[in-house]
């Protein structure tokens, strides 16, 4: 709100600068027009012409020329400021025309007033953007001031000095006229300086505002990151608690029951073997129920996508999403899948690839990861090769340990090395002829 107000003040001052200059130019042109008419009326033309170095313009031409040229200058300046022109050529041809009309205005009033130059300078400064325009700005200003420099212009442009007009009047009136002229010039300077100060201030504030907004944005981002981390931690804790409860409720319950039943069986084994056999059957039932419960729990840990899609499809989807969310390019260079995999095996494969991608992104800052899956003699071979910074000191962190644990469950092996980035290679004896080696059956 305050900024808007300030910007309005600046543009208001700019308009005032134009208005003031317009009035001054009109007054000077009018003064010359009237003086020339008075000179003709009072038969003083010959003595007026005597000291001149050029033929004066006819009086109406002075007025018309000054007003028209100033009108054009104002129009151009308006288009320049309000038109929001981005095209470099258009913008600079506008400035060139502004300078031409500025010179025309000054020529019309016989260079008696050079305040118009400041108008063009104001436009130049307002439209100033960046370094490459600095030379242009300086050159334009220099040229304008050279033109406005009275002595030089009088030589080249055949000027009737305003003093010649003054000399028609009595010394007292001459004094007043000179004073008025000086006041106009000084007032114009004051307005110009004020305008420049306001403009610079306003631009400074704008810059500061953008800077502070940027800082706020950064702070908010950092906070969001912390939140995300915390949410992740909380979810992990919740999941752990749930698992603990689950284990306690199902496996704990079943094992407690089995332990108690086996104790009883030990006691009754000799006295009543039949009864014990019955009891053992019951215990087996309990153990079976326990296994079912554990399975159910494990099933709950399976990724959702694996419930809906096949492993390759789920992996493709996951990698696509990862690609989209992190910008890291993921390329499948080889895909040879075993004909069928167990659910837990699928989970392990899925998690290995997921974890590998996460590591490549988080620790390796890789831009590209190549994945190859193939069936080898030793089993299923999964290779993830990234182009990241690698790892100078390979200490199996959390991710790698997890991976190793998972693979160990399936009697597989995990290799990793720094090789043009970081490479993870997992060999799991599953699929094909190794199918039976995992001693766990459904």
């Amino acid at each position, binding site marked *: 709100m305050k900024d808007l107000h300030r910007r309005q003040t600046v543009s208001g001052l700019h308009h005032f600068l134009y208005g003031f200059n317009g009035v001054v130019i009109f007054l000077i042109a009018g003064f010359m027009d009237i003086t020339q008419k008075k000179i003709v009326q009072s038969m003083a*033309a*010959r003595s007026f*012409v005597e000291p001149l*170095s*050029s*033929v*004066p313009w*006819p*009086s109406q031409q002075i007025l018309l020329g000054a007003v028209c040229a100033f009108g054009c200058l104002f129009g151009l300046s308006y288009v320049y400021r309000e038109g929001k022109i981005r095209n470099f050529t258009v913008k600079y041809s506008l400035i060139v025309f502004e300078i031409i009309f500025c010179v025309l205005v000054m020529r019309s009033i016989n260079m008696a007033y050079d305040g118009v130059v400041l108008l063009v300078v104001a436009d130049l400064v307002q439209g100033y953007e960046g370094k490459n325009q600095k030379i242009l700005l300086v050159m334009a200003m220099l040229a304008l001031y050279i033109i406005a420099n009275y002595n030089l212009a009088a030589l080249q442009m055949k000027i009737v000095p305003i003093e010649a007009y003054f000399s028609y009047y009595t010394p007292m009136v001459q004094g007043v006229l000179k004073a008025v002229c000086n006041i106009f010039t000084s007032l114009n300077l004051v307005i110009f300086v004020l305008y420049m100060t306001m403009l610079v201030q306003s631009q400074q504030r704008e810059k500061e505002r953008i800077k502070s907004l940027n800082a706020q944005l950064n702070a908010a981002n950092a906070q969001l990151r912390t939140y995300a981390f915390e949410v992740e931690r909380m979810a992990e804790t919740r999941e752990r608690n749930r698992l603990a409860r689950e284990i306690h409720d199902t496996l704990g319950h079943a094992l407690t029951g089995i332990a108690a039943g086996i104790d009883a069986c030990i006691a009754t084994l000799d006295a009543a073997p039949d009864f014990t056999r019955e009891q053992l059957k019951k215990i087996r039932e309990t153990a079976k129920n326990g296994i079912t419960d554990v399975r159910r729990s494990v099933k709950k840990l399976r990724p959702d996508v694996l419930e809906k899609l096949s492993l390759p499809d789920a992996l493709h989807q996951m990698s696509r999403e990862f690609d989209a969310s992190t910008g890291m390019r993921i390329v499948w260079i080889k895909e040879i899948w075993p004909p069928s995999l167990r659910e837990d095996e699928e989970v392990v494969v899925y998690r290995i690839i997921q974890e590998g991608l996460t590591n490549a992104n988080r620790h390796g800052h890789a831009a590209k990861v190549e994945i190859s899956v193939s069936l080898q003699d030793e089993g299923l071979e999964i290779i993830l090769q990234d182009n990241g910074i690698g790892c100078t000191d390979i200490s199996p962190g959390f991710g790698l340990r997890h991976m190793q644990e998972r693979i160990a469950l399936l009697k597989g092996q995990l290799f990793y090395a720094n090789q043009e980035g970081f490479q993870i290679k997992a060999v799991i004896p599953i699929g094909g002829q190794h199918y039976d080696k995992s001693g766990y059956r459904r």
Partner: protein
Amino acid sequence: MHWFQKRKYQFWVWGIIVLIFVGSVLFYMVQQSQKHILRVGIFAGSNWNVPAGDSYAVLDAAIQSFQEEHPEMSVRYVSGIKKEDYAEWLAEQILQGTEPDVFFVLSDDFNLYASIGALEDLSVWETEDTSFQEKDYYAPAIAYGTYNGKLYALPFESVPTLMFVNKTLLHKEKIPVPDNNWTWQDFVDICRKVTKDTQENGILDQFGCYDYTWQQAAVSNGVQLFRTDGNFSYFADPKMEEVVHFMMDLRAINHGYNVTSRDFDMGKVAFRPFTFAEYRTYNPYPWRIKKYAAFEWDCIKMPAGPSGKNLSQADTLLVGMSSRTKNKALAWALLKKLCGDPEIQKLILSESQGLPVRKDVVESKDTRQILLKDAPGDARMDISVLSEAMEDAVVMPKFRKYTAAMLMADNGLRKIIEGEVPFNNALNKLQKEINAYLQY
């Protein structure tokens, strides 16, 4: 709504286009109508301060002849502007931007208007137009219209200065009329002889000369008073010293008596410098009877100084073209008609008081007849003398401060010649003063 706005927008665009079109057609029509008018600036009366009859006769004849060649053009001039008002009138016209396309330029105005660019530079026209040859004209007349080496105005008529001789007085004193090669010494000798008290009442009543100025003496002694750029003067020149001594000698002969024009009119003065215009005006009837009936008189060249020749200044009336005229080609044609057409130039002899500026016109048989017809008695105005005087005439330097500088010099020299200031170093002082003014 959208349709309506679009229509409104179109209306404005078409309106502006139609306005611009109508405006340019009107502007073109006004320009075209102006193209058929040539305006001429001229003053009434003679440029040579002598009584004149019909001062527009030559111009009228030129206009008539011009319109026969360019029937579509109409040439106009404002009549009745007196010579003394003409400078102001012309300045006003220039200030208002309405100056005539072709105008007569007074010699006091020429330097100003040539320097500020009110006059068109004719050098270009002159070189492009093969029908215009500078050599047809008297060189001093062309030089009169030249400023900074460029021709800004064409000469219309010229007036050389000659020495008027009172033949009756010289005859009475048994002195022969000097020839055209006479010198200052002859001049001073004759003056000494004729200056006397004829009535023997103790007061001088017969004199040698009247109105002979130091400027005329300087010209005939070959003094160059100013550097060509007008920034330096040479008043301390030894030739100038001779001039001052000569002027002092002349003055001493009269024993302090100030000769008046009345003495001259009564036939009591032997010599008086006379312009050709005055000769032309007062020699024929009726002026001859009215003014100089008591004696016979004639004109010869000015006496030559020890370092100079029998030269004098020639004054020229110029015609220029406005630099802002829209009809430059036709204005040039009219200028040529006025200054270069032999028929029109011949009219100057009968209708005006000056001398044509074309050599062939002056030296033609017709001119001799016109001059002879107007010269009764035994006047013997020799055309070749006239033509020689014109050909060799000295043109005053052309720079803006000339008039003012000469006024200063005249003032200073008058004091020196009249003995108000001691002579010993006066010329050096005068030169310094004038240089200071010129360089200011």
